């Protein structure tokens, strides 16, 4: 008898043990009050961060390659013409909510008391709600690749005509006999290999129609919100704090492997206050310590170990107007690009942990070639290059182009009015003048709105500068949003005025045009990445349409007990805290 009593005791003990184990709590600062938690309306990093935790997408993105990987959709098929994408969803994900009275996460039940699974209908509703003019979503345009989406969003077409719906089930005669509740089909207006990335975006996520119908705009308040992701909103005291608790009902396969049970977020705006709280162990991790503290952090033996510099999907670059002499000669463009000392700029001028760039798209974009030694190695000082060697090579290039020591060269560099841009422009002007003492480099500035108009390809050539400055931040993490939409000669913004008729590098430009267009239409990630690599090499090394200067960066600090993984948007379910280490302080 004694043994069975012990066994009972052991079983009971094991059952109540988790109740006594303290929850693992992550203390996080969002940096500002999230403007919304509505997937249809999110457009800023803060809102998107909390939406990411609460709502699953059809697909997620691989944290390294940025290629789509299964999430709600277990698999997907693309038709041969690339116009029809069908996502087959898993059937074990349910809508949940936080029950304040019971103090726990519960299933959201329908009128019949049944659990509500996340179905294709929720995806179709979500996409259509984002596109509805009534919703006023500002990110609706990324869905315009879907048939009828543009018209519906502008109000000239009907939402019912948008190319998204459940997959019809056909009988032997080819007649539709019903619809697969767990398969969503998208019809596109053009083949788009990057549609996987679009399908992963928050604006295309399932949304709970019944909750939105019942509560209107207030459906995202904690007492109303219904979600399906890794974490569930428990409280949201606007402008002060939000508490999220782990969703116990999410399938194990969709959990990222972290150990955090609760996330307590504050919304501190001041970065010096955030840093003080971090030093006081009131926060486990912060994004962006104050810039004036950076020098101290880097030299402090303890703090420097906690600092992580991660790329941000934005690039700062100088563009060359390739039709304005003497910039029509690619050797001149290349010489100027080579004599920008990117290392000095990020270390002495911007100082924010930026990374010298040798490509247009940075390291978090699908299909990027960032920091590859095969592309413009002189820009990042690899493969035997350093700045002195680059200057010598550039001087030879310019002499060969007919401008020894820069004699006879007069270049106008323009940027929009801003102290930061001015400092960078002055530094680069000094570098160029030192490398080519006989050339003249003139800096001009314009107010932002005027400047944007000046540098478009429609402005008469005598009014545009030789060199313009710009930055680009992703709308979605795919090269299509970069080399194609920004620089493609026929379909992109094409501010450098690239043309296949270029007497020097026309062939390379034609190839660049073909490669970026084709890569957008393919669906094989390996093939696409190869094409984008070629596009970057053509763009930076041969055509030299732009001189990438640096990739923006996040400066992240983690306490020693904190382990964080990296996605373009934070995934809390992949983070971990070593509680024993934290208890020691």
């Amino acid at each position, binding site marked *: 008898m004694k043994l069975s009593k012990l066994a009972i005791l052991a079983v009971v003990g094991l059952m109540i043990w988790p109740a006594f184990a303290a929850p693992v709590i992550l203390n996080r600062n969002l940096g500002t*009050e999230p*403007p*919304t*938690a*509505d997937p249809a*309306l999110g*457009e*800023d990093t803060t809102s998107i961060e909390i939406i990411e935790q609460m709502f699953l997408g059809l697909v997620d993105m691989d944290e390294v390659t940025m290629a789509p990987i299964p999430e709600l959709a277990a698999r997907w098929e693309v038709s041969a013409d690339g116009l029809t994408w069908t996502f087959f969803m898993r059937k074990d994900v349910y809508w949940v909510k936080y029950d304040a009275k019971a103090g726990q996460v519960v299933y959201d039940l329908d009128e019949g008391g049944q659990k509500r699974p996340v179905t294709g209908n929720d995806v179709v509703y979500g996409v259509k709600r984002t596109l509805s*003019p*009534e919703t*006023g*979503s*500002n990110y*609706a345009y990324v869905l315009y690749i879907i048939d009828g989406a543009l018209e519906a*969003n*502008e*109000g000239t077409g009907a939402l019912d005509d948008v190319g998204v719906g459940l997959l019809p089930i056909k009988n032997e005669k080819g007649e539709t006999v019903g619809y697969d509740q767990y398969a969503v089909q998208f019809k596109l207006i053009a083949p788009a290999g990057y549609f996987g990335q679009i399908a992963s975006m928050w604006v295309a996520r399932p949304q709970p129609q019944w909750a939105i119908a019942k509560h209107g*705009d*207030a*459906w*995202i*308040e904690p007492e109303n919100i219904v979600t399906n992701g890794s974490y569930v909103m428990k*409280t949201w*005291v*606007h*402008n*002060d704090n939000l508490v999220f608790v782990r969703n116990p009902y999410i399938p194990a396969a969709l959990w990222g492997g972290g150990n955090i049970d609760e996330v307590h977020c*504050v*919304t*501190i*705006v*001041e970065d*010096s*206050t955030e840093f*003080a*709280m971090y*030093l*006081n162990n*009131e926060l486990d991790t912060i994004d962006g310590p104050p810039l004036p503290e950076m020098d101290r952090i880097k030299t402090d033996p303890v703090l420097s170990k906690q600092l992580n510099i991660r790329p941000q999907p934005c690039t700062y670059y100088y563009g060359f107007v390739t039709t304005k002499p003497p910039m029509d000669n690619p050797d001149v463009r290349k010489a100027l690009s080579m004599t920008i000392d990117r290392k000095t700029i990020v270390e002495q001028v911007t100082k924010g942990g930026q990374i010298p760039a040798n490509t247009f798209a940075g390291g978090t974009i699908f299909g990027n070639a960032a920091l590859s030694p095969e592309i413009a190695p002189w820009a990042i000082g690899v493969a035997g290059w350093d700045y002195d060697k680059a200057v010598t090579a550039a001087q030879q290039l310019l002499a060969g182009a007919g401008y020894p020591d820069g004699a006879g060269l007069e270049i106008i560099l323009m940027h929009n009015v801003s102290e930061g841009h001015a400092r960078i422009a002055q530094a680069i002007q000094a570098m160029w003048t030192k490398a080519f003492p006989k050339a003249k480099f003139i800096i001009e500035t314009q107010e932002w709105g005027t400047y944007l108009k000046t540098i478009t390809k429609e402005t008469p050539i005598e009014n545009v500068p030789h060199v313009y400055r710009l930055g680009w931040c992703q709308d979605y993490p795919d090269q299509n949003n970069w080399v194609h939409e920004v620089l493609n000669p026929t379909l992109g913004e094409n501010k450098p005025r690239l043309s296949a008729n270029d007497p020097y590098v026309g062939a390379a430009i034609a190839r660049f045009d073909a490669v970026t267009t084709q890569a957008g239409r393919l669906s094989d990630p390996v093939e696409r990445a190869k094409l984008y690599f070629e596009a970057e090499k053509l763009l930076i090394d041969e055509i030299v349409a732009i001189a990438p200067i640096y990739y923006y960066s996040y400066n992240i600090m983690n306490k020693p007990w904190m382990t964080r993984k990296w996605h373009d948007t934070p995934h809390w379910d992949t983070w971990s805290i070593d509680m024993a280490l934290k208890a020691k302080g």
Partner: protein
Amino acid sequence: MIQYLVRRLLWAIPVLLAIMVVTFFLARAIPGGPFDFRGDKQIPETIRKNLERKYGLDLPLHQQLGRWIWDAIRFDFGPSYASRSQTVTDILKRTFPISFQLGVLALLFALCIGIPMGTIAAVKQNTIVDYGATFAAILGVSMPTMVTGPLLMWVFALILGWLPAARWGTDYTQLYLGFFPNLLSGKFWLHAILPSLTLGLAYSASIARLTRASLLQVIREDYIRTAYAKGLPGRRTVILHGLRNSLIPVATVLGPMFAGIVTGSMIVEQIFGIAGMGKYFVTSVTNRDYPMIMGAVLLYSVLLVGANLLVDVSYAWLDPRIRYD
């Protein structure tokens, strides 16, 4: 007295109505509307029109004004355009008590520091004590809260470790009567000290200077000389007879000062991460968030009218010669 109060309160009604009308037109006179831009991207024409229709901004102005006044009388200011899931009333109800608590504590700090400092400076006029106090007061006026705040935080939270670095120590959703914090909670006081002190210091300096100037005038009056002649001790004379009279100008500025502290605490609230209403006063204008502008201005006006009334009543206590007829 009662009659006076009633008369003043009745007068407040047309004043508030006038403020509402003027604010309505001023808010709409600022170029741009609430739905023109999100960040630096322009909102498409069709979407903007849809939103404007949704929030009644397509109606003729006089209809909008009528609706706004009618709703405001019933304390319904509508949803905030910048944070569409909340109404302006929700926001004010949640943030006003916090700013009010911070404001009262800051004012207490300001008075507790300012009045004694001003008094000592006046009594020891033209001595090293006076110069020291005056110097401190000028320093206090000229040091912005965005310097004193982080400075105090650095010393008391990071170096000494005595106080928490930031945030307000109450659960925002559990206030007594929806307004008062738990005064017995140590957490509340520990969190309250730094922000209230930061905010209070800035105001204590001007109170000190005003007290000093006013007291200097009063202690030269005949009745003070009489008090000394009667043989009253110096301290008693100054504090009981002199100070009380000299506080009338101080009380006069306290009314508007209090309304200003409660609504103008944006910087301190931002530095210490306190969810008060200061932020909304500034962002509502930059966002062209009309309902929020109207709600905030109306609240400020009510506060100002109320504080001034309180000040007027306090005159009678400070100087019994003052009568209300």
